């Protein structure tokens, strides 16, 4: 965040708006009053958290990952296996999954971070596809059939249980847990963006060679970013598994999921705190509504509309929806942050999202 944004962040108007938003979000399940609408709200939160976790790596460090579904899946599988085989509470499984995903991410990141730009993105796709294939063929984790998560039962009937992170009677707790996850990963993002780690990550994104010349330990900070990103993706994975009560490699690790996570963050606004949240709030309902209203007719009108929306945002808001928010806010204050020419120059500089930097040699 720029200092200007931090300054506006402390203005009373901002806190009032945030307070109102909090009230609305807390009251939302009461307003929606239908499981299908609540489902969409929960999906929005799931993708918001995933996109925010992606943002730590892709937005701040500038390492575009198209394999974050693998971390999500590892989280879902770790807690599910611990729960279904040894009855470990999914809350502990969640932490276990985060640890497994973070360690895996660091092991993968160590060689893969030698690649830059497009090549890094391609390597992350390959990484996720390998994980997907392994899980599809691995008998111990259920293979392609997947795993059913056993019901928490009281008197033989499926029941709600905080201990088992399962709510078979009422779905509202899922909503609040997902909301808490979004708040958690957003708080971490804010913390990172205001800390030196955040400066280092953005310095690396901005000009990796220059950061290296200044003695910044580039690899270490990229590994920190991917470990954080993986850990939070995995935590959401556990939540998702407990929500669906069934996982298989396709639902938790497929390429489309990785792409959607990146897309939500990119369309919302890369490298900003609010961007991934706004992206999820716009994109996920759009996807769900077009599918439920227009899908299933076999003519793919839903996908055409959905694709059209993405194209429109990309053309008119290359900096994501947050770019639009910034512009409105600046107009509201009646003065630009910086002279327009500079702002244009910065926008141009930001435009090549997948731009490659001069690569490390030797």
């Amino acid at each position, binding site marked *: 965040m720029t200092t200007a944004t931090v300054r506006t962040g402390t203005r009373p108007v901002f806190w009032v708006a945030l307070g109102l938003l909090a009230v609305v979000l807390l009251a939302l399940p009461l307003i929606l009053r239908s499981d299908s609408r609540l489902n969409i709200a929960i999906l929005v939160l799931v993708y918001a958290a995933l996109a925010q976790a992606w943002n730590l790596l892709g937005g701040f460090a500038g390492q575009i990952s198209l394999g974050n579904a693998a971390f999500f899946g590892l989280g879902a599988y770790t807690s599910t296996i611990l729960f279904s085989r040894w009855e470990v509470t999914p809350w502990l499984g969640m932490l276990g999954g985060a640890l497994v995903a973070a360690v895996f991410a660091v092991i993968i990141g160590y060689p893969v971070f030698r690649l830059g730009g497009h090549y890094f993105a391609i390597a992350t796709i390959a990484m996720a596809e390998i994980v997907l294939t392994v899980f599809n063929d691995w008998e111990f984790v259920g293979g392609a059939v997947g795993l059913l998560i056993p019901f928490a039962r009281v008197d033989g009937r499926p029941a709600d249980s905080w201990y088992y992170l399962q709510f078979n009677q009422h779905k509202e707790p899922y909503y609040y847990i997902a909301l808490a996850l979004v708040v958690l990963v957003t708080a971490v993002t804010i913390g990172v963006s205001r800390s030196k780690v955040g400066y280092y990550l953005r310095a690396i994104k901005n000009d990796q060679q*220059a950061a290296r010349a200044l003695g910044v330990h580039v690899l270490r900070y990229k590994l920190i970013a991917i470990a954080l990103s993986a850990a939070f993706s995995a935590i959401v994975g556990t939540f998702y598994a407990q929500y669906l009560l069934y996982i298989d490699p396709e639902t938790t690790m497929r390429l489309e999921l990785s792409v959607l996570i990146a897309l939500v963050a990119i369309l919302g606004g890369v490298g900003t705190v609010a961007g991934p949240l706004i992206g999820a709030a716009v994109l996920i309902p759009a996807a769900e509504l077009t599918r439920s209203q227009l899908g299933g007719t076999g003519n793919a009108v839903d996908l055409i509309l959905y694709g059209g929306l993405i194209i429109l945002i990309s053309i008119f808001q290359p900096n994501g929806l947050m770019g639009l928010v910034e512009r409105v806010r600046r107009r509201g204050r009646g003065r630009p942050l910086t002279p327009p020419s500079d702002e244009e120059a910065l926008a141009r500089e930001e435009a090549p999202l997948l731009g490659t930097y001069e690569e490390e040699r030797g």
Partner: protein
Amino acid sequence: MLLEVRHIAASYDGVPALHDVSFTVGEGEVITIIGSNGAGKTTTIRTISGLLRPDRGEIIFRGSRIDGLPAHRIAELGIAHVPEGRRLFNRLTVLQNLLVGSFSRRARAQEQAMLERVFTLFPRLKERAHQRAGTLSGGEQQMLAIARGLMLQPVILMLDEPSLGLAPRLVDEIFNTIRQIAREGMTILLVEQNVRESLEIADRAYVLQTGTTITEGTGTELLASEMVRRAYLGL
């Protein structure tokens, strides 16, 4: 000797850029390496700071070899590299750029004191501390690049073409700044195409031609040398 470069050769993906470069930098000296475009000046600096591994030769800093060490280890020893073309982090503020400059452990403890010093040296940067680096003028950007290098609390400050792309008046200003930093006792390795000005502030200087150091002397000697005058000053 503080820094000794012995017969280094370096290449980019197999294309040789340096053939045989040797020079020394003593404590408190201002050393200039002059040479035309493509002579290997930037490559020399990059090799010292660890961004490029030399194919042959040795780089010795305070008696131990540093060639082959990763860049962050070399920075940790106190060798600061102010890269050609400034290479600021445009989307970070001036202050944040400076704080990235004090990444290393050696600099972090003294960070606040160093900020004070840098802001005294460059009052303009203090005024603009919360502005994005990308919005500074060219001269201010170069000041920030130098200031960011100083944040490391370097033992040697290596400056790569600090006058590149600046208006003549700003070039003078930059050289005055370098003079001032040198007067405070900083050891400086300056690489420049601006031959006259850089020889004027140099204690000693080396001429680099197609990746080879071909001659050396004091700044005044080289300014008077027939070869330098013909080849680099167009006289």
